[in-house]
């Protein structure tokens, strides 16, 4: 399973792809099945063609957690939640099942979680 993420240009907010638009919450993100690689590619390409809306568009791998899906990568989970030292800062402030599932997820960290990772200079 995969999702697509980016940062919104105007404020840097972490956003997720949902059927042609960008949403703030990971819980609202569109999830792509293993067989949908072509759709992922098209959506990433569409996102990259919106340079005044988002920057740094890429897809992330997901893993099951609490009957939901969460990013495999620790880094991506922190992006989807907010900093772990300030539990009221960032997206996690809203609480709820999605946040709990993200918090309970375990799995690999950034190096295996980000697809097509290219180290930026």
């Amino acid at each position: 399973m995969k999702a697509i993420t980016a940062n919104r240009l105007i404020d840097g907010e972490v956003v997720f792809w949902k059927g042609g638009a960008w949403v703030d919450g990971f819980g609202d993100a569109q999830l792509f099945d293993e067989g949908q690689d072509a759709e992922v590619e098209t959506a990433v390409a569409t996102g990259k063609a919106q340079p005044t809306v988002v920057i740094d568009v890429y897809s992330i791998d997901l893993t099951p957690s609490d009957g939901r899906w969460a990013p495999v990568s620790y880094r991506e989970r922190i992006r989807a939640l907010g900093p772990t030292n300030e539990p009221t800062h960032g997206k996690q402030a809203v609480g709820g099942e999605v946040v709990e599932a993200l918090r309970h997820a375990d799995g690999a960290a950034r190096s295996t979680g980000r697809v097509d990772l290219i180290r930026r200079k």
Partner: protein
Amino acid sequence: MYLYDAIDREFLTDRSNEFRHQVARRLAGELTEDQFKPLRLMNGLYLQLHAYMLRIAIPYGSLNSRQVRRLAWIGRTYDKGYGHFTTRQNLQFHWIKLKDVPDILDAMAEVDLHAIQTSGNCIRNVTADPYAGATAEEIDDPRVWSEVLRQWSTLHPEFSFLPRKFKIAVTGALTDRAAVKTHDIGLFLRKGRDGAIGFEVVAGGGQGRTPYIAQTVRSYLPAEHLLSYVEAILRVYNRHGRRDNIYKARIKILVAALGIEEFTRQVEEEWGKINAERADLPAAELDRIRAAFAQPRFETLPDVSDAFEAARAASPALQRFVRNNVKPHKVPGYAIVEVSLKAIGQTPGDATADQLDVVADLGERYSLDDIRVTHAQNLVLPHVKLDDLPAVHAALEAAGLATANIDLASDIIACPGLDYCALANARAIPIAQDIARKFADPDRAEKVGELKIKISGCINACGHHHVAHIGILGVDKKGEEFYQLSLGGSGAEDASIGKILGPGLSADKVAPAIDALVEAYLHIRTGEERFLDTYRRVGLEPFKEAVYAQAD
């Protein structure tokens, strides 16, 4: 302190307006991200994990109350009500929106602050001893020379596109509170045989993936030649520094590759070609800058304050605060007060807007409007009357700022790590919080004594882990956060690079390991030995056993 003149202010206003237009053009799609990124970085604006991060330059860690209040206001208005002090004596805001940055830069410019040269391959903000102008052990005020360097290096056209970033630190004291030997150029003020003032110039220090302690290029440089000599060093670096490989581009690699003798020879040769009259600062200009740091009118006070002595006799908390956070001042009746931003369980280096306002008020009322930032992510009120110490302590206590732990095990340096930083591999802050909790009992922390623990969330080493008594480096090991411990580093006058203790530990094993290291130290220390001294006497083995025997 040095205050901007009309030209400086006009320049900052222009710069802010320029960036406002650049942001507008970026949002309108007239600039691509590739075109815009270097422009925003030149104004200290990074994109981190959750938002933009704005890094504000605090020249040699020196602020007045008006500036601190403005930073508090920015934190409240544009961030989540706090700011984060860094190991380069700067301040970072972690929740900044691109659209707000031009307004923030305007607000900063009104109080002589900016974010220029806090990023990029240029000469970065110059750091210095946070006790400058207050400590008795000082040969000369390092702020004077830091300001000279700041003015000279700001937008210096020749040094705007160096092979890599370039950091300079200055101290006038024998005790090194500015990690001078970990800098690209380090400057120690020295007194010459003739009584004149000069510098010992060291170069090629640095941390990151290849740490080096700086080596002496010149043991005595007459102070008036500072700029021509620094120019010569930078020219040699600019010419020969490796631009082909980002990991080999810092001056430390060049110095190590050439050897200090050959590097020095080339610098001296280059220096010989420079027209010193053109390159060095005119005496009148130096006098103008020096005047900005003239000693304030301290009151004539007795050595001992009866009010203070009575207060501390009655208050164990004040007594403890004085033991750990109050340092001798050069003027009788005054003291230097360190304000710890390391309350147990807090994020190292974070200060809320309300706390910043408290520090601004105390600085204005009790410290001659002078407030400093240390590279250990704490604040300093450099000129507090002994008579006022009880009141200052009480006000700090009320604001959660009176933790009496300077240089103790809970005074931990930590970079923002994976909680915020786009470069990090692992978190640093929660590790620091876990360790600090182990030393929450202040008696235990004092019993252990000076112990500098420093944590970086990646090999770039913003958390100074290489030069920690106990260094902790977060790594990404097969997809999980792991932490590599090293012992025996120091960023002070006895600078050294730590040695790796053994295999990395998972996050939950780090604080117990630190505990085990400390217990081992308490067991084997003799006399007044600090942790570092004991390590230097006995080596890694007893500590290795303490950690890894327990881990099994």
